[in-house]
């Protein structure tokens, strides 16, 4: 069966030949126009004038538009109508688009954009957490506060107390393909937009709004992205709107792509956080209460900051049953890029807060941090040791409910009924030889004065579902043609995660045919409407189920026809091995399909899915926001040069839970890539804004993502082979975001190495650059 097979990605052959098309590779008509934004030179102020004469005079420039050219400025926001396409008087951040150049070529547009002068009456920008708090510059009326049991009382009663603080840097997505869009005007005011986006429906919605046309007049197509990571959930809106407006006004195709410096200066990044903690614990390291305060800089616009900050709160417990917890979350408005979605969506920052607490408690008590973590784990769900059935229909609800045992709840009152980290971590401890290596590291550190080693094991429990409950829906469209070929379309987008192939494997399995019969087509708002962003790791869960629903309708119609003709029951018609068997008879899938066509059976269906059992009140911080949890754990060993701060990851061991994987090869790829990206976030990837609000790290020359030479020389990755207890597609689990947080083990391994040369807990901030490590050693 195709489900569970480690097949290469569907477009792998196109990629290795260089013939896979991205937006910038699509052939355009010769009259295509090219766009570039002119950017604000300061972080805050009022525009007093624009000097665009030199830019307009450049040969090849067709038009330059400013706020004055729009009676109503189009909005680009995904949430709050607070992102004008072009600055309308006030400047909110350095890099904000102020004017739009339309030219005959990409380079001419860029040259003209640099020639334009923006005159500004500067204001002092709000850049830091302190400045934002002093000015009460924030989103929502005040901090969001959730409390689970009486935290102050639990803290007061605790036999041991400690407190601390961690700074957590943001992260640039650095998708290799920058933001890009292409708009092609059609007849009767309609618009076709090709966009490198995770959210075609939102592009359609925002373009329709900007053009004052109904959504039905705009079609958005996305075949693939060259990486997304959350950075193409909302950040592609300005390009698509600018292209569509130009195409509509001038009646010519229009294309825009940011060059790398523009991309990094204009678009949002992962939210940086400061997290303070007040902890009560006992002498064995059991955490009795935590009071967290989370501050995050959201940048100039609301964007997706509220759900991001919510998810940071929702992961403040990570894998630990803590009897009392209070979380206070400040969402601060600053004169910087609009912090936005990034793989993990706030979860990683919240999770790092509690992992820091576990480490700190262990250091305080002189215990192995692993022991402290295990003592605080949620209770293991029963039934796991024997493994679970993999068939989608089998009823495992009794096991899922953990009949007879007391169920613990998270600080937001969701029962934890699928916890597997006792078993998973136990296995990883063995396969990674954790205890022997812990001793070896101590011996090495005792014997070597300069190079110090560090080791850390950290777990992940990540909640799966959009926390905005209505987003948990998906649609699909499946056609079977009379020659037996199958065309599949759904609302999910392909950004390299292998979604298209995993869902195609589901389709092939439902019809019992080989995968090469299934044609995967570009995501298209004209085929499947009202889709959610491909985000929250939900792509396969949602779209896999929607495609399954569509396939099953067609298959069942064929089965009814064949059953009638053979005096059999429809449920006894078997689709397998590209054949259809009914009664004693057997025919090829093509023949069955041809027969259905001749008998006027509809061979097309749309499928729909909505995630069951979820409900959530984000103001109260109470409910069941997640359908289930995905789990994993990683052990990282590092070596640190204590004279320079230079360091290397020596070895990483990962055991990760994908349920019954739809495609283990693609899932392992997500895990490896997620770990490396997470480790990059917390080690070498540093965003630096200067005192004027200028992002100083706006190119790969100054912003260091992991390179091939940074890859751990020993890198063991395995899947935890148990089915999902929730009834997901073939009992698989989401895998996009959870592995990113495995990178936390690299950060805490570095902290462990620093601790070996200090008497006290190092309280390392992230990212742990060589410079910061050296400062922590010498502090």
């Amino acid at each position, binding site marked *: 069966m195709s489900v569970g097979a480690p097949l290469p*990605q569907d477009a792998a052959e*196109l990629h290795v030949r*260089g013939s896979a098309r*991205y937006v*910038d590779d699509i052939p355009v008509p010769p009259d295509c126009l090219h766009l570039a934004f002119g950017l604000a030179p300061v972080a805050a102020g009022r525009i007093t004038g624009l000097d665009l004469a030199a830019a307009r005079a450049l040969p090849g420039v067709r038009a330059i538009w400013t706020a004055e050219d729009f009676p109503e400025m189009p909005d680009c926001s995904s949430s709050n109508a607070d992102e004008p396409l072009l600055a309308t008087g006030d400047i909110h951040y350095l890099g904000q688009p102020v004017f739009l150049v339309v030219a005959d070529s990409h380079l001419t547009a860029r040259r003209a954009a640099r020639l334009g002068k923006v005159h500004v009456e500067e204001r002092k920008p709000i850049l830091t957490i302190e400045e934002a708090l002093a000015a009460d510059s924030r989103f929502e009326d005040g901090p969001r506060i959730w409390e689970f049991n009486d935290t102050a009382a639990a803290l007061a009663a605790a036999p041991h107390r400690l407190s601390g603080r961690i700074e957590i840097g943001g992260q640039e997505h650095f998708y290799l393909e*920058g933001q890009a869009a292409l708009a092609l005007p059609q007849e009767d005011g309609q618009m076709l937009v090709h966009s490198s986006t995770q959210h075609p429906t939102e592009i359609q919605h925002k373009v329709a709004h900007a053009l004052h046309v109904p959504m039905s007049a705009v079609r958005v197509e996305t075949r693939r992205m060259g990486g997304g990571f959350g950075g193409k959930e909302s950040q592609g809106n300005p390009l698509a709107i600018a292209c569509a407006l130009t195409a509509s006004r001038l009646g010519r195709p229009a294309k825009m792509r940011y060059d790398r410096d523009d991309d990094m200066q204009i678009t949002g990044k992962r939210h940086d956080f400061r997290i303070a903690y007040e902890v009560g614990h006992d002498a064995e390291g059991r955490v009795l209460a935590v009071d967290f305060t989370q501050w995050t800089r959201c940048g100039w616009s609301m964007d997706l900051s509220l759900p991001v900050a919510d998810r940071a709160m929702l992961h403040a417990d990570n894998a630990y049953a803590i009897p009392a917890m209070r979380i206070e979350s400040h969402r601060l408005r600053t004169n910087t890029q609009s912090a936005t979605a990034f793989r993990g969506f706030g979860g990683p920052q919240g999770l790092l807060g509690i992992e820091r607490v576990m480490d700190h408690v262990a250091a305080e008590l002189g215990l192995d941090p692993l022991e402290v973590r295990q003592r605080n784990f949620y209770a293991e769900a029963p039934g796991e040791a024997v493994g679970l059935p993999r068939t989608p229909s089998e009823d495992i609800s009794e096991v899922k409910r953990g009949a007879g045992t007391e169920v613990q709840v998270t600080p937001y009152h969701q029962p934890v009924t699928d916890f597997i980290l006792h078993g998973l971590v136990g296995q990883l401890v063995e396969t990674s030889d954790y205890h022997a290596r812990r001793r070896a590291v101590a011996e090495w550190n005792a014997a070597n004065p300069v190079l110090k080693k560090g080791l850390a094991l950290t777990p992940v429990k990540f909640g799966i579902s959009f926390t905005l409950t209505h987003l948990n829906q998906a649609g699909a469209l499946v056609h079977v043609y009379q020659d037996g070929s199958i065309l599949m379309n759904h609302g999910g987008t392909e950004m390299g995660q292998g979604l298209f192939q995993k869902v195609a494997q589901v389709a092939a399995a439902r019809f019992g045919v080989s995968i090469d019969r299934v044609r995967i087509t570009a995501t298209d708002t004209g085929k499947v409407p009202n889709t959610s962003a491909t985000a929250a790791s939900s792509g396969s869960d949602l779209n896999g189920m929607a495609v399954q629903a569509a396939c099953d309708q067609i298959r069942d119609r064929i089965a009814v026809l064949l059953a009638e003709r053979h005096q059999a029951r429809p449920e006894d018609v078997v689709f397998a091995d590209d054949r259809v068997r009914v009664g004693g008879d057997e025919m090829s899938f093509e023949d069955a399909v041809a027969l259905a066509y001749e008998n006027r059976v509809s061979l097309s269906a749309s499928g729909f899915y909505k995630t069951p059992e979820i409900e959530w009140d984000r103001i109260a911080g109470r409910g069941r926001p997640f359908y289930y949890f995905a789990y994993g754990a990683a052990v990282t060993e590092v070596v640190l040069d204590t004279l320079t701060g230079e360091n290397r990851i020596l070895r990483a061991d990962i055991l990760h839970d994908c349920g019954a994987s739809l495609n283990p090869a693609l899932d392992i790829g997500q895990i490896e*890539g997620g770990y490396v990206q997470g480790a990059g976030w917390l080690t070498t990837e540093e965003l630096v804004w200067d005192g004027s609000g200028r992002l100083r790290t706006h190119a790969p*020359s100054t912003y260091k993502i992991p390179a091939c030479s940074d890859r751990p020389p020993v890198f063991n990755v395995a899947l935890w082979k148990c089915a999902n207890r929730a009834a997901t597609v073939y009992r698989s689990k989401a895998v996009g975001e959870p592995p990113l947080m495995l990178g936390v083990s690299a950060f805490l391994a570095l902290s462990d190495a620093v601790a070996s040369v200090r008497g006290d807990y190092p309280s390392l901030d992230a990212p742990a650059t060589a410079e910061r490590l050296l400062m922590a050693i010498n502090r």
Partner: protein
Amino acid sequence: MSKMHLKLTVNGQAEELRVEPRELLIHVLREKLNITGPHIGCETSHCGACTVEMNGKSVKSCTVFAAQADGAEVTTIEGLSPLGEMNVLQNAFREHHGLQCGFCTPGMITRAHRLLQENPTPTAEEVRFGMAGNLCRCTGYQNIVKAILAAASEMNAAKEAAE
């Protein structure tokens, strides 16, 4: 700006065209010759998505003037499988899942092709450092290294069999 005359060979095909002196090789390949396998990632020679071969060396075509390629032999990803069949490296990247979003893949394979010409029997460490100029944001590089090592051993086995 006055244009200049440029003659070069791309993927075995002789090309003659007029370019501006400051035009970059990547723009000529993509926009004038419609060769879109090499991609534009950073335009500052850091990411390697635009890697091509010029006169038997890996170059980042976003920081090579087209004028510098006058008279040169240039090979892009499209030139690695001129007869239609995927070559050993291309096949290894596919089989060993050495790609995700695929945007870095053409540059990555073009660089790996040259690496294996320079060093037909690399160690994992030599691959890691030999490929350090080509960034991938998706895979974590594990499967890229695996694919290159697999291709190297397959090419060496084929060579031995032929001898």
